[in-house]
């Protein structure tokens, strides 16, 4: 009988019990460490043929084997982590900053300014996310930095809308009215009253969106719009490997798995923050 259980608030079993809840944080930490230390711990140059045979199997010398050009796959994956994190975290940071500022102004000021900003956001959001990013990359040219910009731009309207909704929810609360009654101006209301109250939910949301950004960036790389070869780029490595699936499926599985692990860990972290925020 489903309902009797649904409407009585049962004790909640956490998704990952106890120590398991720490796991995603550890994974993210480990990956960040690996990305920073890549030049030190990577055994080979990620770009050069290391003199080994092409598509060498896993071995102590090449833990993940070599790719179709005889490059060390382990070193390439290590070096691919940095750009992935730069793109996803950078894009979200940029989108939170720009979208957050626009949304805050829109939500606090209200009136015609709010109306104009939100219609502009509507138009930007009438593109499918990935198409918007593709267009930006077409206009700017493919590179890791532009990839970050493209993903950021595709996320800005989302954060603008979210921040506006949060800010509009706070603005109607009496403490904002009280601040205005005390003679404070709109700038004080935005920065000192509203912003601190929406920061936490915004940052929690941002954590989850890092996962979306990483997926979008990887997809764009896969389409060949990220870093230029031979720079190591996990999304593009999946693409290159895809052509070899008949002879060496691990070439495409491994880099994709690394992306998936990163996104998964971030998602679980965001999930935990969300749960705490929700009470």
């Amino acid at each position: 009988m489903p309902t009797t259980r649904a409407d009585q608030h049962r004790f909640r079993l956490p998704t990952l019990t106890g120590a398991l809840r720490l796991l995603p944080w550890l994974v993210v930490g480990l990956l960040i460490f690996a990305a920073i230390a890549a030049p030190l711990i990577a055994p080979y140059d990620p770009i050069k043929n290391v003199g080994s045979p092409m598509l060498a199997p896993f071995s102590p010398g090449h833990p993940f084997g070599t790719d179709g050009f005889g490059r060390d796959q382990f070193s390439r994956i290590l070096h691919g982590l940095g750009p992935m994190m730069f793109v996803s975290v950078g894009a979200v940071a940029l989108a939170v900053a720009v979208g957050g500022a626009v949304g805050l102004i829109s939500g606090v000021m209200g009136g015609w300014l709010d109306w104009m900003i939100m219609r502009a956001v509507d138009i930007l959001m009438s593109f499918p996310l990935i198409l918007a990013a593709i267009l930006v990359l077409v206009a700017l040219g493919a590179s890791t930095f532009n990839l970050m910009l493209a993903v950021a731009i595709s996320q800005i309207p989302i954060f603008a809308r979210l921040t506006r909704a949060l800010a509009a929810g706070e603005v109607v609360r009496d403490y904002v009215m009280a601040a205005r009654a005390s003679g404070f101006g709109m700038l004080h209301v935005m920065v000192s009253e509203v912003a601190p109250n929406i920061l936490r939910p915004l940052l929690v949301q941002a954590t989850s969106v890092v996962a979306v950004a990483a997926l979008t960036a990887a997809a764009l790389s896969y389409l060949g719009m990220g870093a230029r070869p031979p720079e190591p780029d996990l999304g593009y490595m999946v693409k290159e490997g895809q052509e070899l699936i008949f002879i060496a499926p691990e070439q495409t599985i491994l880099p994709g798995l690394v992306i998936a692990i990163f996104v998964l860990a971030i998602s679980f972290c965001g999930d935990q923050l969300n749960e705490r925020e929700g009470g």
Partner: protein
Amino acid sequence: MSAPLLSVRGLTAELGSGAQRVTALRAVDFDVRRGEITAIVGESGSGKSTAAMALARLNEGPQGAFSGEVRFDGMDVLSLNSRALRSLRGQGIAMVFQDAAAALNPCETIGDQIAEAMVVHKARDWRAARAHAIELLGEVGMPEPARRAGLYPHEMSGGQRQRAMIALGLACDPALLIADEPTTALDVTVQGQILALLKSIVARRDMGLILITHDLGVVAALADQVLVMYAGRIVEAAPVAEFFDAPHHPYSGDMITAASVALDAGGRLATIPGRPPHSGDVGESCAYAPRCARASNQCRAALPSLEPHGTRRRACFHPLDDA
């Protein structure tokens, strides 16, 4: 005198989980008879709503457990199985909630919501049930009941929603109606109409009514019996006229004085110092002692029990009739 419709003995409720678990209700005893209006009055956290919900076991679950005895029409409510409990809800005991806007399903017409109770309990077909729903809406004074039966809750005013809520409660001819702050969310000019409606229904249908309220004016207007709750316990129980004439518990007295809202010689309103305790926030002494002008060391050391005294019961070491 006939046997009471509802008889509650030693009802105790534990709410919340883990460290937040509190005793929201302690050893509550009272009876309700047909045709009689019993008001349970108290401030927030006094346990009055918990008591009301407990009678139909609505707040039962991992976050709420009850002990004691609730006898309704000969049934032991606390030990009913889920099937019998469903049959009790609606048919035996019905409830009118404070916030009708939230308590009515926003996506279903008023008529259908009322009719559903009859379809479920009396296996009526929908057509007959809807026709009877319109009759009920007429009975609760809804203007143009046939048209309003087809409206959604958001299309009605607050007063009309509360009338619909009452009609919903009456759908299966319950013997006992529990009204939890039925007029608190309404404007004053509408409150009186709803209260008058409740009173006429109780008389006409010979039902029992338990009225949960914080408003002594509402109690004076409607109730036959008064139960005053404080910190999860009944501190005074009395017939309404005697209660207002001469309250025995100092808390009752202070509440009546405060409710009459008049300035004293110093140009100030009568107040009760301090603030009401949180539920479960009390130990084994009189919970009102910290705010009470008559409190002695005895009050701070021991718990006064609810003792019969003439037509009433009271839990106080220094009642007001003691001079």
